[in-house]
């Protein structure tokens, strides 16, 4: 079943203790869309992204991915949190790329990519191997399959991380500031891989500071500040013609 909405967030609230980080987020991302999330640090954009695959538990509201409630089951009008196994099953189809790559340093590049399909989905090793090699080829790291992450540059590590997420054949990819930890000259190679993904029709939610990427690749842009969505629309509209003072202030600083 393919829903007409890949991601749907309704009135999502999240607090850490007494600190309310998300104050009612609504969002719809359609299949094949690339949604970029912009905002100053502390605006809750990363937290929101982490709610989409239930790395953070939400306090109120609901999130649906491909028509399925994430992290909860609805029974008799009430939400019950899913067990660990069921959440894990949902996460298989949601890829995530982190700011700090988080590759497994004790495994080779190839093993990093093969780990989840082999262990989690229990697919045949030979098949996973072929697929992983072609994925690594696609992100331009066909030469590095036997290396350990510690021997790669940041940009190369991040591309491996993307390949690792793709190896699970996700229907949705989440990117949490994928280029923020990179040296400036390495940002381009990662963004290129992400552009390729977008062209292939992958649905993506990207938290980023790369305005250029958002403008060029994004189908949709939301600007968050203080735990709310301040403004959303097509990237061109929001960037060239921001309606809100806060958006304008933020853009004037980063552009």
């Amino acid at each position, binding site marked *: 079943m393919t829903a007409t909405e890949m991601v749907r967030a309704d009135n999502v609230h999240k607090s850490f203790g007494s600190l309310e980080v998300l104050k009612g987020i609504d969002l719809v991302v359609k299949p094949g869309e690339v949604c970029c999330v912009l905002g100053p640090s502390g605006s809750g954009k990363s937290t929101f992204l982490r709610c989409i695959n239930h790395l953070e538990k939400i306090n109120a509201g609901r999130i649906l991915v491909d028509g399925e409630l994430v992290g909860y089951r609805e029974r008799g009008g009430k939400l019950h949190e899913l067990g660990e*196994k069921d959440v*894990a099953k949902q996460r298989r189809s949601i890829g995530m790329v*982190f700011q700090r790559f988080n590759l497994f*340093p004790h495994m080779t590049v190839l093993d990093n990519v093969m780990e989840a399909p082999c262990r989690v989905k229990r697919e045949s090793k030979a098949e996973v191997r072929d697929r992983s090699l072609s994925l690594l080829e696609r992100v331009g790291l066909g030469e590095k399959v036997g290396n*350990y*992450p*510690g021997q790669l540059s*940041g940009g190369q590590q991040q591309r491996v991380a993307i390949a690792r997420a793709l190896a699970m054949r996700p229907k949705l990819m989440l990117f949490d500031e994928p280029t923020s*930890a990179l040296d400036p000259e390495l940002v381009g190679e990662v963004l290129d891989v992400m552009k390729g993904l977008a062209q292939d029709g992958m649905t993506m939610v990207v938290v980023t500071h790369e305005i250029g990427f958002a403008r060029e690749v994004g189908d949709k842009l939301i600007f968050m500040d203080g735990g709310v969505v301040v403004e959303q629309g097509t990237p061109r509209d929001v960037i060239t013609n921001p309606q809100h003072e806060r958006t304008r202030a933020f853009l004037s600083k980063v552009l």
Partner: protein
Amino acid sequence: MRHPARWVGLGVIAILVAMFVHLLVTNDRFRWSFIFLEYQDGKRGVMFTEPVLNGLRGTILLTISSMAIGIGLGIVIAIMRLSENRILSSVAFVYTWFFRAVPRLVLAVLFGNLNILWERIGFGLPFGTQIGKLFGLDGFDGQFYSIKASDLLAGFVAGMLALGLSEAAYMAEIVRAGIQSIDEGQSEAAVALGMSRGQVLRRVVLPQAMRVIVPPTGNEIIAMVKDTSLVAFVPVTFELWFQLQQVSARTFVVLPVIVAALIWYLILCTVLMVAQFFVERHFGKGYGAAAKARQRLRDIQVEQGGRITGVGEGP
């Protein structure tokens, strides 16, 4: 000469070494032939007599079995300690508190005498006899299987339990430190890929934690080889130091026997240190020279006030 002090130091050391060798070679009270060749007419040197070799076997067996208990249970307790479940973590805390607080020697004696508490040890219903009385059954004891306590909890088993349970407390702390040293991003990435909690631990966290866990564990094993001599107080006779003491008591030869023990302990620990080297190399995969060099470069940059690359700040 460019470094006169260095040469003076070298000279002093050379003289000390020569004096030590001279002592070993010329002082016949070491009685090397007693140690290596023949301690009584027609018998082998004291290091290699049958009872001493048996004792050596006992020491090795005791080290292996109590370390197996220590490491296995230690991992379980460390995981319990880190659990979000308050009951599990407090049980783990109390366990480590108790077994770290009691000296091993006291534990060994205690376990040797625990069978005073029970006639028989077995599996059954708690309060079995009392429940039986409640229903008017006099002979009922609710036991499924039991053996005589003095058979089970004496000698080797008691010593093994005393050392193993105490070791588990120390290993738990070592494993906990190892697990906590791993960046949270690692388990986050694993969880995001759909791994279960068990898989995250087995495949991602523990293998990396091993790098931190192995060196202190090597320490623990080496300490255990030596602590096995404590079980003489259980009492366990199947052990190296006890057996050598027996020889000493029989022959009235003291120093050479001690030297023999010393040599055996040196050999055992040398073997273990070699093993540790290879284990460390195995778990150091991915942290090779290149990665190390890069880390060093980064450290230098930081020292010089440069920026840290590859380490971003959280939101």
